[in-house]
């Protein structure tokens, strides 16, 4: 599809416009559009059954689409052949491994399919399996098998890497290690399309987040600005100093403070002004504002709200959650 701005396609790794996919009468993907720039990491988040894996598998060339246009590395994955697969790396959400082969053997055999593979031992080391290199797959833990998945996905030194829920089932340190690996891949200029359930993963890895629910994109933006998160009202809270009431607070606050469980809550679009007033007031009185925090909705809160999975009153619930530590 020619771009209206006429710019070269060199900078775009994935271009999806009005992609549709139906299984019989069920429309799994209902006309989604997005782009992935070269060297960018894009996270696709959404609940199970939202259409993430269907979308990714269409981009990988595993499934035909029902409608819309897709260009991956400038090619149509539905008709692209070996050239295309030489340049992509795929970590599927679930796929098998030959249980009787060792880590190193599998990475070695897969490296042989590519024109310019990475070094086998280096790849095994990169995913943190150096100590397990001569262990057979059947003796690996679930997380170790997942890291082997990752090794097989990158051993061909691809330009574009698809990671479908790459860290599901990982312990925190293995996840941290995989994040570092993904970061290092991006530093090498690789483009990465990631799907994940974990908002902290999207926040840590992605330049941009696309939220999919019910087969449609419900929000798109940087992890910082998604769903207007950067513009949303902040909640300032602190413990009300003993012997004081709400009436003792400075009068010029930008909104009406509330008292809950001995804590003052102030919802405001101008937290800087409010904080200046409050801290000036407290310092003037020689009071320390205990348990002082400024909260914004977390990416997870925004996500739950966008996908309709959370409580409709998520921001209020958030405020209450943060303010009732009981100790």
């Amino acid at each position, binding site marked *: 599809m020619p771009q209206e701005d006429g710019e070269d396609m060199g900078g775009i790794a994935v271009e999806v416009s009005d992609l549709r996919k139906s299984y019989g009468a069920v429309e799994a993907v209902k006309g989604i559009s997005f782009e992935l720039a070269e060297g960018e990491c894009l996270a696709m988040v959404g609940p199970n059954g939202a259409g993430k894996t269907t979308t990714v598998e269409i981009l990988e*060339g595993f499934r035909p689409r029902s409608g819309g246009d897709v260009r991956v590395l400038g090619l149509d994955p539905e008709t692209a052949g070996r050239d295309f697969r030489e340049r992509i790396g795929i970590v599927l959400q679930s796929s098998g491994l030959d249980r009787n082969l060792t880590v190193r053997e599998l990475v070695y055999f897969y490296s042989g399919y590519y*024109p310019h593979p990475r*070094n086998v031992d280096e790849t095994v080391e990169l995913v943190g399996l150096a100590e397990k290199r001569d262990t057979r797959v059947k003796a690996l833990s679930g997380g170790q*098998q997942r890291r082997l998945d990752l090794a097989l996905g990158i051993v061909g030194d691809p330009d574009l890497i698809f990671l479908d829920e790459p860290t599901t089932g990982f312990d925190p340190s293995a996840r941290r290690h995989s994040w570092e690996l993904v970061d290092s891949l991006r530093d090498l200029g690789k483009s990465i399309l990631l799907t994940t359930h974990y908002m902290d993963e999207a926040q840590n890895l992605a330049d941009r987040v696309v939220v999919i629910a019910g087969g449609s994109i419900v929000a798109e933006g940087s992890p910082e600005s998604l769903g207007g998160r950067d513009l949303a009202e902040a909640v300032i809270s602190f413990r009300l100093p003993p012997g004081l009431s709400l009436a003792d607070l400075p009068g010029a606050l930008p909104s009406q403070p509330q008292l809950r469980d001995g804590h003052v809550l102030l919802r405001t679009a101008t937290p800087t002004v409010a904080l200046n007033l409050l801290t000036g007031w407290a310092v003037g009185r020689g009071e320390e504002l205990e348990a002082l925090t400024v909260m914004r909705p977390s990416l997870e809160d925004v996500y739950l709200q966008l996908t309709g999975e959370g409580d409709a009153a998520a921001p209020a619930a958030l405020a209450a959650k943060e303010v009732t530590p009981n100790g």
Partner: protein
Amino acid sequence: MADTAASAAGSATGVARGRRPAVLPLLGRQFRYQNLLFWRNPFSAFFTIAFPLMFLLLFCSLQGGSRLTERGDIRFAQFFTPSILVFAAISATYVNLATSVAIARDDGILKRLRGTPMPGWLYVAGRVLHATFAAVLASVIMVAAGILLFHVKLFPHLLPAAVVTLLFGTLSFCALGLALAAVCPNGEAAPAMANFTWLPVAFISSIFYPLDNAPQWLQTLGGIFPVKHFAEAMQATFSPFTTGSGFRWHDLGVILLWAAGGTIVAVRKFQWEPRAANGGRRRRRRGA
């Protein structure tokens, strides 16, 4: 060492663009891949080699010096060695391929391979090559055991026919094994389906005893399937009464017809994705 360092540096900077791997080395790698899997799975190696060898030792010992009058009074071992060779060759190809390909498909291994640049036909070629190798290896072991233990005689002028018959049979049963893998609903059913389709046929195919004096309908029934033609063509290459070069072209023709049918079914029905995953999302990864 310098090579390794250079390639590591190359991959890091993305400067070194290598060349697409050539077909023959890739085929060689796929052969080694399958060979490792074959020997590390005790069942495939056992059923292909040890199991037929046991049959050979058992049957030839039990039958001792008995002779088969319907085959011109030849010794039992002279009949049974080519028979068990056919048995082993079919295990190595039909049973092994049907089972391991269906399981690899349902485990998602084929799907993963489909996402690599290796052409699909090359994967299939690697499997056929290895199955053929296993069949030839098992055949050599059966014949060697027959010669050493039961004084089986080889007839040099029939050897070309023996080799050609083995290759016809092997490739045909590779095609049929791939066809069964393609139509088999799931990997767990594959071993049962393979054995259930082939073992009953083996008993009406002159493998364990000649069918020459069996009722006509049984001979006709056996003659529909390729096993009997494979067995009798192979037995002819071990018989002192065979005249000429020993090629039984009508048997080879039937084997070829089955090969063509198997190839058509395999090509039309072969799938790379797990069958179970098609309906919904039943497959979840272990530990997730």
